[in-house]
């Protein structure tokens, strides 16, 4: 029989973050010595997810005694920051604006400390082809890919390009917008005749598509947080989904079974942790990130993508990893905010 894999992630210092974690002593039960403005919403396709993430994080921070204001991002952002003067801003905007670096530029401009990666690194990580190239340069594996802007199809003819894609990659392939998250606009294509429709659905989200060779295996997400000793991986979370891990599966509880920690052999668990930390470093990420991977049947991980602003909703992977690591969520979020207060800006 299949041996039930032990709760794997070994408590080696390079895998679980001990240093940073707010123990409950760093979280006063009351008293609001720290004020945080949580930014959520925005106008991207992922507004709904962002609002949910924002509410969750605000709730957790309040539980850790932080004075929290939840704010939708609009034209008055600078005015809001000027009048409320939060100690730290925690941007929880997913999608365009939030992750592409532009909001972070504004925060730099305003001179407020904020949680997360700086503008330039955000911009690079947000653009999947650029990020994939950096990952490869750092020696990480990522599925074979092609970037196809819409104009290319106009110039060369859609059928010819798609035929060439299939010739190169075979099937199945995964079609996704080069920018964007939450699996929006993503299709796994099994048959040549479904490829055109997948491209149309993808281009509705943006002018450029990424086509990847589909990789089968165990889906895991590894969250990374910065600790005094450097970036540290939280236990990998394994995703077992009925069907594809699409928007519905991500945000309506039920179709996905999560295993935190993932049921991986020790050496594989160590490998995904190492790779996630390497990805965090390669993309110059700060404070927190999440790397989504497939562990192939031979045990080798392949990085699908790296998220600058991982989802923080009820069904999101980052909070599950925090719990699996044995951390108190409010205390850990508070310590991330405190870290932003003290960290040197890039």
């Amino acid at each position, binding site marked *: *029989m299949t041996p039930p894999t032990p709760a794997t992630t070994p408590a080696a210092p390079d895998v679980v973050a001990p240093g940073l974690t707010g123990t409950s002593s760093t979280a006063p039960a009351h008293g609001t010595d720290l004020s945080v403005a949580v930014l959520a919403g925005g106008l991207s396709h992922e507004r709904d997810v962002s609002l949910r993430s924002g509410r969750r994080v605000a709730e957790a921070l309040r539980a850790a005694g932080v004075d929290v204001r939840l704010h939708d991002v609009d034209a008055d952002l600078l005015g809001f920051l000027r009048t409320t003067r939060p100690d730290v801003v925690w941007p929880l905007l997913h999608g365009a604006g939030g992750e592409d670096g532009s909001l972070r530029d504004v925060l730099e401009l305003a001179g407020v400390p904020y949680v997360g990666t700086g503008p330039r690194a955000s911009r690079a990580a947000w653009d999947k082809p650029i990020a994939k190239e950096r990952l490869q340069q750092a020696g990480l594996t990522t599925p074979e890919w092609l970037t196809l802007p819409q104009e290319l*199809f106009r110039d060369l003819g859609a059928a010819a390009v798609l035929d060439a894609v299939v010739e190169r990659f075979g099937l199945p392939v995964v079609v996704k917008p080069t920018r964007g998250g939450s699996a929006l606009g993503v299709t796994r294509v099994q048959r040549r005749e479904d490829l*055109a*429709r997948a491209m149309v659905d993808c281009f509705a989200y943006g002018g450029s598509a990424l086509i990847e060779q589909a990789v*089968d295996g165990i889906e895991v997400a590894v969250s990374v947080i910065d600790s005094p000793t450097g970036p540290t991986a939280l236990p990998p979370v394994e995703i077992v989904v009925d069907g594809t891990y699409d928007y*519905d599966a991500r945000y309506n509880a039920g179709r996905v*079974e999560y295993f935190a920690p993932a049921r991986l*052999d020790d050496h594989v668990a160590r490998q995904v942790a190492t790779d996630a930390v390497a990805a965090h470093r390669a993309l110059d990420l700060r404070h927190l990130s999440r790397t989504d991977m497939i562990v192939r049947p031979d045990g080798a991980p392949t990085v699908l993508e790296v998220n600058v602003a991982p989802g923080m909703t009820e069904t999101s992977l980052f909070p599950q990893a925090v719990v699996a690591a044995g951390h108190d969520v409010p205390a850990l979020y508070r310590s991330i905010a405190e870290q932003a207060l003290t960290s040197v800006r890039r």
Partner: protein
Amino acid sequence: MPRKLPAELVTRLLREGMGPRAIVEHLREHEGIEVSPQAISTFRQRHTDVPPQHSTRRVVPWDVRPEHRSSGYRRAILAYHRRAQGRTLTGEERRNLEHVERTLREAGQVIDYQPAQGWLLVPARPGVDTGIVREPEASMTHDTTPTQPATTPAPSAAAAPAPPGGPAASATAAGGAGTRLDPWFGSYAARAHGMRASEIRALFAVANRPEVVSLAGGMPFIEGLPLDVIGEAVQRLIATKGTTALQYGSGQGDEELRERILEIVALEGITDAHPDDVVVTTGSQQGLDLVTRIFVDPGDVVLAEAPSYVGALGVFRSYEAQVQHVPLDADGLVPEALERAIVQARSAGQRVKFLYTIPNYHNPAGVTLSLERRQRVLEICKRHGVLIIEDNPYGLLGFDREPLPALRAFDDEGVVYLGSFSKTFAPGYRVGWVIAPHAVREKLVLASESSILSPSNASQMAITTYLATCDWRGQIKAYREMYRERRDAMVGALSEHLPSASWNVPDGGFYVWVRLPDGLDARSMLPRAVTERVAYVPGTAFFYDGQGADHMRLSFCYPTPERIREGVRRLASVVNSEADLVRLFGTHAEPDDDPRDAEHPSPNLA
């Protein structure tokens, strides 16, 4: 004694994800080696470099291959597993399942899930494949049990992937501590299966941001009301009659309001109703819910226009009705098609419970049932003994003419009439009403008490006060003029900016129903609209069966004329870019492959 295993080959097969039983078969066929599945499992355990089998995949057909995606197959697979779990099926589920079982048996096929390819129809192995779905490899579900000889048909329940106990049980079987983040996932009623927010619904989240012109919602323009006057009246009401207004009320509703309602419906020719025939509801939406609750058993047929009001379809779905759409044209529901639908359903042995129709300024189609057709629809329904549910929230909002007589004006026996203050006054009070024949009304009152005890007294009395002290007729007239101006703005902007589409020009109500240029798919296009800061509702929301992707509904009730023109301008650029793309790829509008999930905005999103 089993022979020694060819280690390399077995390792490779295991790595490819093949289960022990399949490997046994493979070895027998290709290598002439007889081994037991147990030996393979033991081998896998010893050779830790072979990754453990992934957890059992619950066989829920979300990724049925497109050719098998017809909701018939999908529903059959779901029903098959539900039955295996000992759950009861609705009549419609049973019929569909039996149909699929018969078809597959005759074709000698079963449905098989292949991790790499999804769901396939494959030749059935005689004696092994007993149901419509091939059982997962024994190894994947219960490795510890002694393997059955391949010829013994596995009882389908044994392999039913989701035990009634739900997620906890399946997690234990897989050996880890998995969670579905919803401990009640296995407990929901069948009718809750579609109650999921979709990607499309999430896109509407931007609709109430001021940067976005929303042509998606059905919110009336409340700023048009004399809020100061209403405010004073309500203050007086609580000060003088607060002990009643804030107390429980009667299940049937406030009597004074029911009398007032008769004044309103008299404008549409309903003059023979008595206050006792009126049941006040929490919006006409609750009226719809009550009527469906008392008439519809799972599997019963409800006839509705194609397209029809998304909120009504949601109610019908929650009572597991089967909706048959009947076409409409510029003059509303087509009587001949209605009669055909009744006859066809009856001859197929189905029970037709009622016709649900929106005769005036249809949501979403914008059309009105002509006077001549009203008589014919009444006559057909009477002849076939089919009840009519007349849903009429927009009847008084005609732009160019006095209201046509309601269907109920001609027939007090065969029509249940639903009315509402939401569109002519204010939806925030949530007050609507039902006028029904006495026996139906008695049941409606009891049904309403069992769901809400009584409609809000405070709301009802506020409306009564408004009707008594404000010029409500003048207000409706003002609304009509305002909405006419907005309709003109929308239709004008459509002609100017979107000549490649086609639409009707509604002479009342809130909506324009737009047919997109050939090939465009309103669902697929919505993200592009969000990027351009404009929102609409894809036509698929208004069909029970996933049709309608070639249409979109635009509403002109909430934005100002200037915003409407801006919205249509943005929409035109969206449509034009999408048209380019569609031409490039040669794609078409496609049916929504899961019409059950929620793909409309929530009511407070413009």
